[in-house]
């Protein structure tokens, strides 16, 4: 009896392991198909039945694609939005999180509810008035409109997440520092921030991904071709080279590889960031 149940347990584990592997490979398939198509010649890519791998790897596709898809410039452009935004998000969300976690002040409850409630606000609802406001002051064409919001609190979600972390740190630490005459700014930067470094790294990495992947923002605010971001460049490339699939797949590969590398380098922080967003809320 005991034996039988043990065997059936092992049977289930094997079935589950197989199912997971099959599903996992299916999830990876689009990435494989993209890479494989990006290395094919025109004859190979339209062959029937489709080839699994190119016969000779045509890295030349990348060279040709780069002529119409200025990848280096897209990287520079995207980083000139993402890097200042990461700084803004980390700074201003930590400040707000500190106030909510550590200070007592009038109307605290109200502000907290409003700031956190704005998390549920769909961004698409307010794109028009915000655009109108930027164009009234003549800043609707360029990076300003994309960077400034990062300095205005850095997103309710990040404030909430960092606050939750500050709350887990014993107050004795900062109270001792206050007795020693430290200011709140010093406590935030020299005591609390180093202790919550993992969550700050998570927030920073997710902010990078957010800006790298954003398309609606650049569509509205970046109209000059030489200022295009990577996602925007990719969208334009697709509409311009509609059916040259090997070139399009090469461009997709270039746009996808950087976030994937960053993801694998900082995997732990990505996974933790997502887990905490779900479990702390």
């Amino acid at each position, binding site marked *: 009896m005991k034996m039988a149940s043990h065997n059936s347990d092992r049977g289930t584990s094997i079935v589950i392991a197989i199912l997971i592997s099959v599903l996992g490979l299916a999830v990876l398939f689009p990435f494989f198909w993209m890479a494989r198509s990006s290395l094919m010649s025109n004859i190979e890519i339209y062959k029937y039945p489709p080839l699994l791998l190119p016969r000779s790897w045509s890295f030349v596709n990348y060279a040709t694609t780069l002529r119409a898809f200025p990848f280096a410039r897209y990287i520079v452009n995207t980083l000139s939005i993402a890097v200042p935004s990461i700084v803004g998000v980390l700074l*201003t969300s930590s400040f707000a999180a500190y106030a909510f976690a550590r200070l007592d002040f009038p109307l605290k409850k109200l502000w907290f509810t409003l700031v956190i409630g704005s998390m549920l606000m769909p961004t698409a609802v307010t794109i028009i008035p915000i655009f109108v406001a930027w164009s009234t002051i003549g800043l609707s064409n360029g990076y300003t409109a994309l960077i400034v919001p990062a300095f205005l609190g850095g997103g309710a979600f990040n404030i909430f997440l960092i606050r939750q972390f500050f709350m887990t740190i014993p107050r004795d630490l900062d109270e001792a520092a206050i007795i020693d005459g430290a200011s709140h700014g010093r406590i935030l930067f020299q005591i609390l921030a180093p202790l919550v470094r993992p969550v700050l790294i998570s927030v920073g990495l997710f902010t990078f991904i957010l800006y790298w992947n954003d398309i609606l923002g650049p569509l509205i605010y970046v109209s000059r071709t030489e200022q295009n971001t990577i996602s925007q460049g990719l969208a334009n490339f697709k509409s311009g080279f509609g059916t040259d*699939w090997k070139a399009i797949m090469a461009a997709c590969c270039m746009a996808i590889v950087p976030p994937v590398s960053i993801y694998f380098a900082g995997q732990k922080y990505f996974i933790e960031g997502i887990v905490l967003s779900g479990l702390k809320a």
Partner: protein
Amino acid sequence: MTKRTPRTTLTAYLFLAPALLGLFFLTIFPMLGVIGISLTKWTGLESPTYIGLDNYTEIFTSDFYFARSVAATLYFALGAVISGIIYSFTVAFMLNKKVPARGFWRSVFFLPYIVPAIGTSIVWSWMYEANFGVFNYVLRLLKIAKVQWLQDPRMATPSIIVMAVWGCGSLIVIFLAGLQNVPRSYLEAVEIDGGNAWHKFRHITIPLMTPIIFFNFLMSMISNLQIFVPAYALTQGGPSDATLYMVYLIYREGFMRNNFGHASALSLIFFVFIAILTALFFSTSRKWIFYEGE
């Protein structure tokens, strides 16, 4: 908590200043702005003309696109949320068993979530391509007729739902973390009482997971209702408006046709639409969410 003194109040407001500016300038004032602009006819070039509720009357009575857009958005969001929750819960449940290389597979399932949607949409559109795409090749092997995945009005939204489900790796990570928090002792108690795997699942796992299911459902609903990228990059709202999702319609009216007034009215309706769905969902939560210790 640092005691309330004029000094701490000043520090607190100084620290909160950026976030409060954000609250006012990125949420509250724009919300009022949407209402204001929605009462005008305005292309952004000349000054706006006040036309009262005309935009709304037009949307609800003669706007050819509005009803189609609402239907397409609801269809997509319902499909993507329900299949996404089922898919991600199943995968997380399996990953929670003793699976070889679990960490690796978790990373794999999460991967589609962090890559640019524009890139993955394009890759999927290549796989969906009617003549040379890999899906139609598989159908041909199975002797099934070709499908015009993204060009057939009946197939476009289901095809985009599949892409969305593929991309919902964050849900898997959250579910998995939740499952790992289900206390072993509870599950063992069921075993001691002679319960089987189904009993454990039905009476321990599911009830303890309801708060996380709720959170994932809510977040997934709000984000899927805002679907935009595939409609923009692959189908431009077509074929026959089958993918004319709300955000794409707002974008098209506002930024491609410069109808700020009309687009603002659509935005406000969209907001109310999401708010109602969220409220409905919250109102059901008391009935099925299990809170430990109650």
